[in-house]
């Protein structure tokens, strides 16, 4: 066989392989036929909810923990919430959001709830599409923040039956890696300093926590934007403070 023939065969084989791959991706049911697999409900839900979690955390994190903040500074077209605020000069600030962790997780849960329900319903639909019989009851959820992860409880009791196999689930736990808990903890501590001393020394935090990067951006009229970034996960949390502001000159 001459070289041209060999090349032609290789090209045809390559085209066939690419075509098969495309068909499999275009028609997922074929994938099941070709490589039938057991659904991992937790993994399914995790895959479903993860992008949403990431998006929601991003939104909340860059706005000081609120989806629709009140009491904020507009910084680069982002409403960054004041976590500590003093209106006048020479005054240390008052804490505006005392329970930051709880508030953040409440906000996150509120944002994610519709998507959590959708994901749970999609899971049921997926089972049914695969020929399972599914009985389920009302869906609820619980979002909690932990050190290094965000835990989402899909409280979606369901019984899945196929042939003689029956499986019952009360809830599904999904853990998504995130450093937001630790960022919020640091933010809480910084806000403590702002309220007590009017400013914070950020170098020490970074010395203690080498993966942490803290940017302190000083805006006009004494407003400060803190941006905390986990350099490993690249997550960040931003918030604003205004504390112990000194006017220029003698104010005369």
């Amino acid at each position, binding site marked *: 066989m001459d070289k041209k023939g060999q090349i032609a065969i290789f090209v045809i084989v390559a085209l066939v392989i690419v075509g098969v791959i495309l068909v499999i991706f275009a028609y997922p049911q074929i994938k099941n036929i070709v490589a039938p697999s057991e659904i991992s409900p937790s993994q399914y839900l995790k895959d479903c909810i993860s992008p949403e979690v990431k998006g929601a955390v991003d939104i909340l994190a860059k706005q000081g923990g609120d989806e629709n903040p*009140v*009491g904020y500074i507009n*910084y*680069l077209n982002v409403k960054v919430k*004041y976590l500590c*605020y*003093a*209106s*006048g*000069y*020479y*005054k*240390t600030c*008052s*804490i*505006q*959001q*005392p*329970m*930051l*962790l*709880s*508030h953040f*997780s409440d906000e996150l849960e509120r944002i994610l709830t519709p998507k959590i329900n959708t994901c749970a319903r999609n899971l049921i639909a997926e089972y049914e599409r695969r020929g399972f019989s599914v009985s389920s009851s009302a869906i609820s959820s619980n979002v*909690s*923040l*932990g*050190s*290094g*992860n965000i*835990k989402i409880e899909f409280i979606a009791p369901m019984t899945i039956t196929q042939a003689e196999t029956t499986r019952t689930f009360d809830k599904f736990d999904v853990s998504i890696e995130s450093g937001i808990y630790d960022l919020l*903890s640091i933010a*809480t501590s910084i*806000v*403590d300093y702002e*309220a*007590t*001393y*009017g400013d914070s*020394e*950020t*170098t020490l935090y970074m*010395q*203690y926590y*080498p*993966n942490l990067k803290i940017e*302190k951006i*000083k*805006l*006009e009229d004494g407003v400060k*934007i803190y941006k905390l970034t986990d350099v*490993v996960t690249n997550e960040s949390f931003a918030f604003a403070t205004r504390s*112990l502001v*000194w*006017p*220029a*000159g*003698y*104010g*005369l």
Partner: protein
Amino acid sequence: MERKEHYFKAIFEIFILVVATISFSYLMHESYSLENNILIREENKFNSISLGLLLILKVINKILWDEKNFVSALEINSCELSKTGQVCVEYLSASECLDKCAEQCIPTSLSGVSNCKLGSCFDSIEGTCQLNSPKRACESNGGTWLNDPNGNVAQCKKGCCVHGNNANFWTERQCTRASEISGIAKDFRADIRTEFDCIVLSGAQEEGACLTGKDVAGKNNCKFATKALCLQARGEFYSGYLCSNAELNTNCVKQKTSSCVEGKDEIYWFDSCGNRENIYSANKESSWNDGKVLGKDESCSLISGNNYLANQGTCGNCNFLLSSRCGNKTATERLSDAIQKDVCRSLTCRDENGNTRQNGETWCVYQGAIGVDGNRAADTPGSRHFMRSCFEGEVRIESCGDYRTKVCVESKTNLEGGGTFSNAACVPNLGDLCVIYNTEDDRIKKCNENPFCFVKETDISHEFSFKLCAPKYPVGHNLATGEGSSACALASQKCTAVKVKKTSGWEWKANEDCTKPEFAQKMNNLCMSLGDCGAEVNYVGDLTENYKVRHTPRLGQIMGIIKPSIGIFPRYGYVPNPNNAYLNNIKKYSDVVPGQVAESPDAGEFYGTVGIPNELGESGVVSDLEKAQAQMKTFGMITGGAGALMMYAASQGISLGALSVTGATELTTATLAAPSVSVGGAQGVAQTVGPQLSAAGGVIAGAAIGAGVTSWLISATGIGAGMSRDFANALIIAGAIGGALIGTATSATITAGSTVPVVGWVIVVIVLVVIVILKLMGVGKVKEIHVNFRCLPWEPPRGGDKCEICGDDGLPCSEYACSALGQTCKFVNEGTSQEKCINIAPNDISPPIITPWQEELQDGLVYQNPSDLGVNIRSSSGDGCIAAYSQIKFGLLLDKYGKCRYSTTPNKPYEEMTWSETEDVADVGEDLNIVFQKNMTVNMRMPSMEMLGLPSYDPNKQADYTMYVKCENGNGYVANRDYAIKFCIKPGEDLTAPAITKRNPAGEYVKAGASEQNLSIWTNKPSNCKWDNANKDYSAMLNNFTCANGFDEQELFGWRCDGTIPLPKDETTINVRCENNPWQNDSTKRFSNSESTPIKFKKTTPLVIDSASPDDETLVFGVEPASVEVEAETSGGISSDTMCGVSFDNGRFFEPLEGYGNSHSKVFESFSSGKKFLMLKCDDSAGNIAFRNISFEVNIDRKAPEVTRIYADGSALTIKTDENADCALSMDKCDFAFENGTLMSGDELAHTSSVEMNKIYYVMCKDDWDNSKGTCNKKIKVIGGITQQL
């Protein structure tokens, strides 16, 4: 007849003696009166210039620094929720609050609002504790608010929570929560008290091989993990074993690769299964350690001597604290084993000078010289302080606040191995307090105590020297708005130099040094020390001179007496001899001084200055204003040039330089003779009052008359000041001799042809001729030269050529830095990554266009015929003319930022439309605004008719008065024609009596035991004032006030009169009346009050601190720092106005307690354990003051309760503890969670619970502060009613 004649002679001689004595006394009096007049005038000048400004500063200080105490006076209002969503906000006025608050405004400061009280907010779910939380913010979020803002409560107590590979410094509830979420058993170490210790612990957990089943080949699967994780995974844990240990029969092969590990500093070996092994060492065998875990301390050493990276090529035992950490290898940093990709990389940095800095080191960077250089502050306009830090090999920079609102302080620690380690911090700049101290009695003491202040001495001459408290690192001014102009104006001073014509020519008598070049230099040193004022360079070295000086050379023109009467100061014989040495020295301040740093303030002062910035003030503003005003008088007398002059004169008894002073000194000589002359005369009278006078009596009387007349002539002609003392004495003696000879002849009835009276008359004539000649020569003439220095706010250079170099020095640009580079520089895109300093008008050559500003025109005035050339300002009533002396206000608008000057002479060049440097005339010109603005308000007083050359007594006269205005733009381009503002002026006649606008003290209460009280009153026009105990007409009142009636002596509240009122009784009331037009000699043109203003003084009782707590007691807390409430009860003084403060540093700084009246308290939240000594000080606005010392001890309970006894009565188990505690039982395990146990009843020393027989119970107790052992106290079993400890 003869007898009659003798009587006549005797009576005449007696008359002469009496008259001579009186005349001597009169001359003495006149002399001293003149001296005093000069002194008083000097003092008042100083006060009028400076003290009004200090008053303003004091008021501003109250607003800025004492908002809390300012409540009642300025109606501070608090708002629980603002319209923009902020919680607990204070507003300076009720109207602002009503505008911005979403709820009801509360007319008090935040500390008075219960819902805004600060405490700790505990999240019972997450376990977090947010300190300093307002009550409302906490509870509205579902938190539990605890009444301690510092977290000194059990729920907020932190310990070390170990979970997985991590350890966090959390509350116990937080740790429990983490355990619930992760499923990892809770491991809370309450005994670990610091975050650092906790972090260290995270690297010291028990680790080992975790076997998790077998592979197909029968080998064990292995993971290297902590014990907790292994047990969670239900693995078999081999503590201290590596997975590659042959004993474990795993499939893992040792030391296949090496790499970094997240969260750890070192390089580690990894086995073929990917498990971490020991710290990398080129000596593999020692590193593997026979398959056992090798601790960090036992691993290879990276260090040798002082070299922290000595074994970088062979050892992976990096140490973050010693500036090394695992990272990718580089061209210069690598392991000897070329296969390995990671290395212990140096985390040190190179600073801006190329020096090595350790990781974590922080140091200060400045943009020029800082602090005090010699006797002046050196920080330049636009410059800031920065703090740099070395962070993992990267140098970071942080600005210490724009406008130098913070100072970078630095200290160095010597390292054992040599070298130093710098620690820097940005601390609040308390420099603006320094100026305020100048209103205080103990200003120098306070100045020396504040590390941000220094005592600025200005010593120009013996008579003109004073001390002011000035900032070491002056806070920058907003260069665009002219903020700080009042602070600069403190250095605007006038010195009166006096010279007298002598027979030998003109001679200086006082303040000669004020006319020398050093005057402007020394005054500029003061000026620039007060902030961005005067002649200074910006931080890139551009000099602008922002001051005005009259009758003294400017800074760059050091004068020499080379060619008298030539040059710009011909009148005083100066010649410009340019010498820029002074200015060059100032220019050097834009250069960084190597090694210069701001010293770190000591901890005691720092305690008082950080964190409690709004409580440095004193009591209520009204009383403080009064106090400030009262103190101003003292201030002016003691620190002012005039004050120094007065004190100097008083102590030395020497001449002060004016004619009258000299006259006084010389007349003293003559006066000394007067009593003897008088006595002699009296004796003569005694002897001659009989039949006839003696000849001696005639001699003495003649001598007295001769000396007296000569003295009077010397004084009356004014030549005395120009004569030497000896010459004056000789002339007086000659006059006396002449008089004596004539008197002798007269009394002894010597015949007319005798030579004795002829000689006498000749002598007298000679004396008279000498006096006339001296008078004709002008001897004794006095010249007063008012040498003025006006300190103006610093101005950036014209134009904007240098805007874009902002940030080129490697330090970030800012609004302040940008604005200092040029008049047309503007900082844009602030807060973004595109911050820039740009020139906003690079090609602008057109000067500003002026138009009238209608909104700023005073009611009753109108603009007429506005055009490009000017505008007329007229009264809206009558003939449109404005009365002389009346105060008017109008405004001008510019179409762009500009600076304007005016002159009363048309077509003057802009440069000449300013202060005359040689003349004391007002119509030469002046600045309309001192900074570039787009609009300006002009407040001015209409000139008198006399000033315009017309008689003011003619009511029908009118005069035109025109101000010619020119403006320049930011690039220095000036209009080529005047903008004329025209007025019509008519004579003003003041027919109304003055009104008292202000008094100080305002209240009636005075200090307990006071015998007199200084009283100042202000009137709305120049006046003379009197007081009397009885209510009389002005003319009948006996006591005068000393009043400043100069037209330019107007202060904030008008013209001031001072007096001292004796207080013989507990209550004294005086009556005050004033009279206007003090310059009118015709009393019918002066109008006085028809009614008196009564002013009452009432002595207070002494102020006493009756009780204070805590005192002499021991306070126990569970958490450090502890919160302690300090309380004081007072009586006496002005109870409604009493304020108390507490000092922790033996009286150097007092932090105010809350509350006026008799009860004062405040919670202090930062007490460590140990004995505490506090000083209490209470005072009121009357000046009463009381002190009291208290002491107490703070104990921190860190000990867990001990079980002292256990016994059972049947099934009832009783446990006794050595302190109050809660105890719980568990049948599960020893380290059970307390909250999961069964709580025993009783929370003091005895605890009971029913138990089952023959069962094992674990007992755990914790005290009120949650101190517990962490595990169970006891393990017990109850058998047949008897307890058995296991």
